[in-house]
């Protein structure tokens, strides 16, 4: 019964890891409580997106990850 949190881009450095397994289910308050304070602070920035099970959430505070879901924390992108 777990959820995998994946840290992308600069969040990877802040977390000191690429991914982490945490107990399922996981909602927004659960996420903010389980990550490092520095990452929780970042998550409140509106430019940080959250994806769950391969879909970017329109409203990240509605996060509802269940067993087996992957939750990706997506900082501002820079491709091209």
């Amino acid at each position, binding site marked *: 019964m777990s959820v995998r949190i*994946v840290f*992308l*881009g*600069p969040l990877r*450095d802040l977390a000191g890891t690429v991914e982490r397994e945490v107990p399922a289910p996981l909602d927004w308050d659960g996420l903010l409580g389980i990550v490092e304070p520095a990452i929780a602070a970042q998550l409140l920035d509106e430019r940080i997106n959250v*994806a769950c099970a*391969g879909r*970017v959430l329109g409203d990240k505070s509605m996060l509802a990850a269940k067993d087996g879901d*992957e939750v*990706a924390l*997506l*900082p*501002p*992108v*820079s*491709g*091209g």
Partner: protein
Amino acid sequence: MGEALASFNAAYDQAGATVAFLGKVRPDGGARALELTHYEPLTLPAMNTLAAEASARFSLSGVLVWHRIGVLTPGQPIVLVSTAAAHRRCAFDAVDFLMDHLKSAAWFWKREKRADGWHWIEPRAADYADLNRWK
């Protein structure tokens, strides 16, 4: 690049206009390498959606979007975008649209290795302004 464009062009030989953009790693400010990471579950679906949107919006006959990941050194290609359309203006605008979105709305993150280590690159204000032109 040559082969990709030659075959893309051959596939759309009835389209009057083909435009291609190739972006490479610049040897700016002493950068020794560039690393591109992505989030695989989102990357390809989002690129497909973006290509379909460009195709409909600019009446394209064809569209090609390539984006590399991994560690690249100065001079190496990062991104190749090509579009085919009946008219030049549509083909041009579509490449512009695709590049603006790949720069600040696709699931890639870039960091640069300088003498003092790795530095993440955030999109600049100008990149967001470019993106907003299409809204």
